[in-house]
């Protein structure tokens, strides 16, 4: 089982993702430079956070044109699990692999804090075994995490069970007070229609060990490993 951690100019959570996968979860992991055009031999892909290309023009706007994104598209079309975290989520949106877009936080502040997430569906490889309504404590760190999509798109996401995480309070109530950035319908993470591509603003790779304040992020990667095990079995 081998996971790819993509590296673009300006990625800065790539080592965190690598550490979580290789040293905490214990699966094989490798960095893949954005100029690569193949993901052959990999079983899962992580698009880590950071500030690719300095967020020039828009977050993820330049990265979507990197050669590796063609490979990500083919990998996703083949049903392979892809998770885009923070800037990785923004790249997936810009690339059109997920619907919607990010605008600046309604507070106009960079937010770096632990938040609570309510799981919305267990149909992705990263949430298999995490029942709907489960509350996870995972940190966010972003300036442009205010998820936007027009109303028909939002309704479509709900109908097709593509809302994977919503910001909530510690009890799991989805309230406006628990929405850190103004995201439409408190959306923190969504998946594609097939369910194999997940984008989320919070950083599960930053909380895979209790010493870091929470180990809840580990559950997503454990789920991925279990899902891949079932797939190859």
């Amino acid at each position, binding site marked *: 089982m081998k996971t790819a951690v993509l590296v673009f100019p300006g990625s800065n959570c790539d080592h965190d993702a690598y550490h979580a996968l290789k040293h905490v979860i214990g699966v094989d992991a490798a960095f893949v430079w954005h100029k690569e055009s193949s993901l052959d031999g990999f079983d899962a892909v992580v698009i880590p956070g950071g500030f690719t290309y300095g967020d020039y*023009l*828009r977050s993820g*706007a330049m990265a979507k*044109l990197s050669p590796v994104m063609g490979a990500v598209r083919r990998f996703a079309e083949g049903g392979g699990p892809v998770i885009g975290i923070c800037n990785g989520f923004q790249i997936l*949106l*810009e690339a059109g692999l997920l*619907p*919607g*877009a990010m*605008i*600046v*936080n*309604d*507070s*106009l502040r960079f937010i770096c804090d632990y938040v609570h997430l309510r799981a919305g569906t267990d149909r992705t490889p990263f949430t298999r075994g995490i029942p709907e309504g489960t509350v996870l404590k995972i940190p966010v760190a972003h300036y442009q995490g*205010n998820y*936007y*999509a*027009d109303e028909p798109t939002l309704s479509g996401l709900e109908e097709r069970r593509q809302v994977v995480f919503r910001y909530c309070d510690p009890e799991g109530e989805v309230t406006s007070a628990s929405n850190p950035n*103004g995201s439409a319908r408190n959306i923190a993470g969504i998946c594609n229609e097939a369910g194999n591509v997940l984008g989320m603003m919070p950083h599960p790779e930053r909380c895979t060990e209790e010493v870091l304040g929470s180990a809840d992020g580990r559950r997503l990667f454990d789920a991925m490993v279990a899902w891949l095990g079932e797939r190859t079995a």
Partner: protein
Amino acid sequence: MKAKIYVTLKRGVLDPQGKAIHASLTHLGIDGVEDVRVGKFMEITLKEIGREEARRRLDEACRRLLANTVIEEYRIEIGG
């Protein structure tokens, strides 16, 4: 040949920066401002490819990179 491209958030998409600037203008005592929208301005220098061709290429550039049409709209001005 020069072209100017204006990219702005669509009406209906919240513009927190515009709102903050509006509040600051009011704070400065500059009254009568109804709304502020923040956008991007790009000046592009082109080879002499003809206005029609320039517009076609820049429209493609806007759709594929310069603007995110989920949240933004764009306007192209082709000058002399």
